[in-house]
């Protein structure tokens, strides 16, 4: 009746010719979205500019890409002080109808992603010119993918999380297949696409089930609903949804048994792209994983923890054991990245603020060292990425000692040798596991590190002790077999030097980064509505 009455009242009023309907739009904090906008918008401008500009100076696109990612990172750092300083700043908050979180955690991941793009761009510059593929596409896709990663790290809604995942992934499918003249690259892109899309579909099915079980896609609301009523209507639905989500994340971060794509894609895809996959995509994947499981489903920890612990153990052991059997360096690094994902999963599995902080530290440290590692692989592999076998590294220590030395530092960091960032990364994760009472899990992680050490040390031995181990050169005539010196473009050298220095600086002064990672985490755990 009241509806009829109001209609009648409306009809009685004089009809105004111009009607304006007030649609309530959510308030948007543009300042909070700035790093995302600064990644995505200039990337598209870059793409359009490349079709308009006829002649640009050499390295223009790489410079632009580094500049864009650097600007985004700078604005993210400005935000950092705003969201973590609880006295002067406004603290963490959500915007766009509480679909997008701006907190220390998302800002930290944003910076990690920007650094991943910068390192990959520097490496890609020389690579693309060497392969005759120079152009803006690679850089634009890297930046767009990073913008998707930022969305994923900041998502406070399952819809936004899914959009972020897709914007992160789709450019990387293209990037993996981007070497037009290498069949292996296209095959890698195809495999990555099929398995990535398959994983996204699982992820999406999980989202649908979680939405059905809780009646909301907002992570804060889901968390609240589950806190109020742990035996929420359709508990089985929720658990099935969480399991599907875990499968989707497992594919993205390359956890055993969802790792099958990793070695093939790492081997076939262009090395600068692999560098971004290992640093950027992994960081975004773990950001989403921590936010969904450690924060949103914190109340269900008894249900999902055993499964994540199982995944972590499989990933730790599977990755490092399978890496031992590889002879191709890119495949070896693929398996080693799987074993690193295992360490990160340990940090997720312990479900504590310390674990999440350890994951952040690990992602930052690993992103730098793997970026430098793939810079070396890009340089050594040579035109067409022909020389990716261990043989290509034999005697490198004698021919190009500085390059070999830098590579050795990065390999030691991946092993977890003290005074490198890798040591404190592994230490943080294992400490979080011990603090949480997971002694046997910590022991498994250390065992995996020991097995993994063999892999990295084998490369170091190949570089510095060639005469001792190679029976084919046993006749003493090693010099005759010396290949051409490895070409080192300036940008690649810069990337390598920067990552080596950063790895060592963090190794000597870990407090710089651990404090930041520690600041980033409790905030997110405390603030979801």
């Amino acid at each position, binding site marked *: 009746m009241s509806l009829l009455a109001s209609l009648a009242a409306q009809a009685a009023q004089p009809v105004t010719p111009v009607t304006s309907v007030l649609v309530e739009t959510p308030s948007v904090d543009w300042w909070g979205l700035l790093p995302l906008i600064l990644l995505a918008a200039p990337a598209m401008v870059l793409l359009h500019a490349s079709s308009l500009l006829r002649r640009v100076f050499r390295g223009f696109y790489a410079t632009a890409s580094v500049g864009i990612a650097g600007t985004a990172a700078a604005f993210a750092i400005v935000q950092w002080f705003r969201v973590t300083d609880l006295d002067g700043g406004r603290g963490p908050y959500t915007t766009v109808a509480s679909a997008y979180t701006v907190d220390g955690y998302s800002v930290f991941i944003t910076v990690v992603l920007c650094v991943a793009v910068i390192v990959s761009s520097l490496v890609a510059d020389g690579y693309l010119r060497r392969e005759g593929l120079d152009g803006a596409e690679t850089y634009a896709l890297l930046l767009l993918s990073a913008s998707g990663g930022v969305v994923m790290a900041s998502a406070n809604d399952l819809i936004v999380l*899914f959009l972020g995942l*897709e914007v992160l992934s789709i450019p990387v*499918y*293209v990037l993996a*297949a981007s070497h037009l003249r290498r*069949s*292996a690259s*296209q095959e890698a892109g195809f495999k990555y696409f099929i398995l990535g899309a398959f994983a996204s579909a699982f992820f999406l099915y999980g989202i649908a089930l979680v939405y059905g079980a809780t*009646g909301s896609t907002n992570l804060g609301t889901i968390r609240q609903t589950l806190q109020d009523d742990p035996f929420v209507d359709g508990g089985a639905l929720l658990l099935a949804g969480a399991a599907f989500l875990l499968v989707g994340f497992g594919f993205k971060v390359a956890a055993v048994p969802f790792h099958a794509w990793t*070695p093939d894609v790492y081997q076939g895809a262009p090395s600068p792209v692999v560098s971004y996959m290992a640093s950027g995509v992994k960081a975004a994947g773990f950001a989403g994983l921590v936010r969904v499981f450690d924060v949103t489903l914190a109340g269900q920890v008894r249900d999902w923890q055993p499964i994540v612990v199982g995944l972590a153990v499989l990933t730790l052991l599977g990755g490092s054991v399978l890496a031992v059997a590889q002879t191709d360096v890119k495949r070896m690094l693929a398996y080693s990245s799987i074993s690193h994902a295992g360490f990160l999963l340990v940090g997720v599995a312990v479900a504590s603020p310390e674990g999440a902080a350890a994951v952040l530290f690990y992602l930052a440290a690993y992103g730098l060292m793997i970026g430098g590692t793939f810079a070396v692989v890009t340089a050594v592999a040579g035109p067409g990425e022909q020389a990716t076998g261990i043989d290509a590294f034999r005697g490198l220590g004698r021919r190009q000692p500085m390059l070999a030395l830098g590579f050795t530092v990065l390999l030691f960091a991946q092993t977890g040798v003290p005074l490198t960032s890798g040591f404190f990364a592994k230490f943080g994760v294992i400490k979080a596991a011990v603090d949480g009472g997971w002694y046997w899990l910590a022991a498994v992680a250390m065992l995996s590190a020991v097995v993994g050490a063999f892999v990295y040390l084998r490369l170091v031995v190949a570089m510095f002790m060639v005469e001792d181990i190679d029976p084919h050169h046993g006749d003493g005539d090693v010099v005759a077999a010396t290949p051409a010196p490895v070409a080192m473009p300036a940008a690649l050298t810069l990337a390598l030097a920067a990552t080596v220095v950063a790895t060592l600086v963090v190794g000597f002064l870990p407090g710089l980064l651990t404090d930041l990672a520690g600041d980033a985490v409790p905030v997110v755990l405390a603030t979801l509505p």
Partner: protein
Amino acid sequence: MWLNQFLILGALLFCIGVYGVLARRNGVMVLMSIELILNSVNINLVAFGAFNGTPVGQVFALFVIAVAAAEVGVGLAIVLLIYRNRTSIDLDAADLLKG
């Protein structure tokens, strides 16, 4: 109509899609199977949305349709690239990368 009916239809489509991805060797058929899974998700989302009485499910389904279109665009482009180089889109023929 019960919610269960839609969920069972969704689950069936999902299973058919997963079977297709795992069993089919033709690249385009695998792409179609993935589309099938995404559409099973859409059925679930719309059914849950109607069940909860909120438009969230329907809106999400629209997003999924848009993203699926973008994804399949990239997928077909890659399939085409491979076909041009090898005149085959058989997944089993893609065996350059092994170790």
